[in-house]
């Protein structure tokens, strides 16, 4: 398995938006969008990427409301790809259900699963799921505390503020090989999430794509510093993931011309700064594969050596055919160079990207030394 050996994992993360293609006005059906996500994931594996992560949303125009259903379907049609989320809502999902869903997915996929927890950014989702947005932070802490115990203790007695108590609860199925899926905590702007990841020694994923690098640097610095403070290792041994956003064509100017209408009308940043301003201010890179390589290698300058790089390539109404072409370029021209170049100067003591196999090995070693 490729993931086992990789110092760094490369992959894609999807929001799962149904957005009309601004150049044609055509909007895919929900069915088409869901099947496109599957095609994109399969393509990611085919071109040699390591990770596919899906968002979780509970309102139109988004389709991925049930991530483990989607990931289970993809797991059945892939053999190497690590299936992940971006993000799983720790606030509004029942931690018991998260534990169950991901345990089953872990068994079905042979350990090819991890997850990224987040709070979500759509206010009404809280009341829709019977929660109070004003309690988002304590809710996150309580739910995640329970999730950790469900995955680590055979019989759980638990009571808390936001969920009914559990007495003598045993998770079924138990995590594969007794090792829970690796957990990342994803954040755009909140320092609380960096602290949560550092406290437990989990991974920290900086969304990175919407804000300037100075902001990402600050968040990752805090996470690394707090990771060391909580005695999980040195700051440069903390597990960091980054988002990125690219659009490529062999000829740089073709990429800019083709992507501009998608940028200008994108739900997230459209009608604001120009494409040129946004690419200067954020990690968005629109150009040739070489430009993407150079820009991406530069991320290391402000976050240090890191473990996972996910790209957003399938949003804002881009047609499936175009997205698949992007994956070809990523897999054939960009990622092989990134794998090689990111190795240069990477210290021995910086951990490789975590996989199920590496976690099993670590658990065995901990067992032997105990």
């Amino acid at each position: 398995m490729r993931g086992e050996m990789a110092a760094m994992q490369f992959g894609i993360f999807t929001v799962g938006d149904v957005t009309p293609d601004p150049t044609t006005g055509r909007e895919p059906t929900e069915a088409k969008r869901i099947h496109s996500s599957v095609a994109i994931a399969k393509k990611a594996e085919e071109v040699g990427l390591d990770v596919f992560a899906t968002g979780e949303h509970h309102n139109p125009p988004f389709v991925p409301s049930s991530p483990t259903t989607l990931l289970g379907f993809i797991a059945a049609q892939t053999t190497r790809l690590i299936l992940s989320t971006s993000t799983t809502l720790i606030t509004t999902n029942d931690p018991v259900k998260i534990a169950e869903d991901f345990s089953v997915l872990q068994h079905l996929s042979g350990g090819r699963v991890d997850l990224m927890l987040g709070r979500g950014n759509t206010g009404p989702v809280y009341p829709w799921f019977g929660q109070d947005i004003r309690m988002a932070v304590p809710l996150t802490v309580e739910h995640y505390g329970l999730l950790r115990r469900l995955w680590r203790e055979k019989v759980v007695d638990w009571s808390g503020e936001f969920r009914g108590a559990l007495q003598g609860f045993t998770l079924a199925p138990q995590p594969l090989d007794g090792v829970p899926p690796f957990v990342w905590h994803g954040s755009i702007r909140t320092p609380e999430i960096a602290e949560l990841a550092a406290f437990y020694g989990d991974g920290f994923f900086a969304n990175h794509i919407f804000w300037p690098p100075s902001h990402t640097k600050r968040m990752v610095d805090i996470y690394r510093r707090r990771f060391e403070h909580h005695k999980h290792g040195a700051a440069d041994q903390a597990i960091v993931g980054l988002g990125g956003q690219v659009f490529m064509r062999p000829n740089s100017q073709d990429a800019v011309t083709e992507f501009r209408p998608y940028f200008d009308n994108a739900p997230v940043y459209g009608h604001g700064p120009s494409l040129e301003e946004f690419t200067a201010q954020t990690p968005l890179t629109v150009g040739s594969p070489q430009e993407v390589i150079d820009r991406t290698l530069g991320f290391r300058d402000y976050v240090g050596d890191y473990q996972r790089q996910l790209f957003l390539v399938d949003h804002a109404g881009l047609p499936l055919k175009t997205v698949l072409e992007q994956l070809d370029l990523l897999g054939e021209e960009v990622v092989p160079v990134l794998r090689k170049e990111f190795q240069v100067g990477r210290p021995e003591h910086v951990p490789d990207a975590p996989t199920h196999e590496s976690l099993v090995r670590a658990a065995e070693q901990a067992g032997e030394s105990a």
Partner: protein
Amino acid sequence: MTKLTIVTGGLREPSSTRLLADRLDEAVRAELAEQGVPATSTIIELRPLGRAIMDAMLTGFAGADLEAAFEAVGSADGLIAVTPAFNASYSGLFKSFFDVVPEEILSDMPVMIAATGGTERHSLVLEHAMRPMFSYLHAVVSPTGVYAATDDFGAQHTASGLSERIGRASADFARLLRSCGPRQRRDVFAEELTAMESLLQKATRDDDPGSVED
């Protein structure tokens, strides 16, 4: 050294809003100087930041120029805020600037409010629009604001002449600045981090059966 920042939302060049802002700036510094408190001031014109403010509203982050304006506001000991009155309120540009400033940047900030308008009929914009907004932002708003209508820039013969009102408001604001003293800026980022740390420690203590005392 007391640091003043002046935010002015005038649109035209020359602008009567800027004119009022400059006079308030001078008057407050003169008042402070008389009381032996040296002061510096920085003027932020919102018009050149117009696009940057809208971009920040749409993207959620500020470009370099706007970030510099935020820094000038955040690091000040006192703020003088001046807007033209539009449709019985502050201008949209003025409001938008304060809609995109970082959280709690105005907390505990002494603020002097001032506005300009075509006629004196709009003078309550100070009390009905500006004061509540700055109170909401946790600023300490000086009791006396200044409203200047177009006529005020000509007629200085009445008892309530503009210069006199500027003098009164500046004296009040100088007193407020002196009693508030140098401002301690709130660091929301650090506050959130500390709050999270204690929340996590408490949660894991509660979870640990070994820590139960009985």
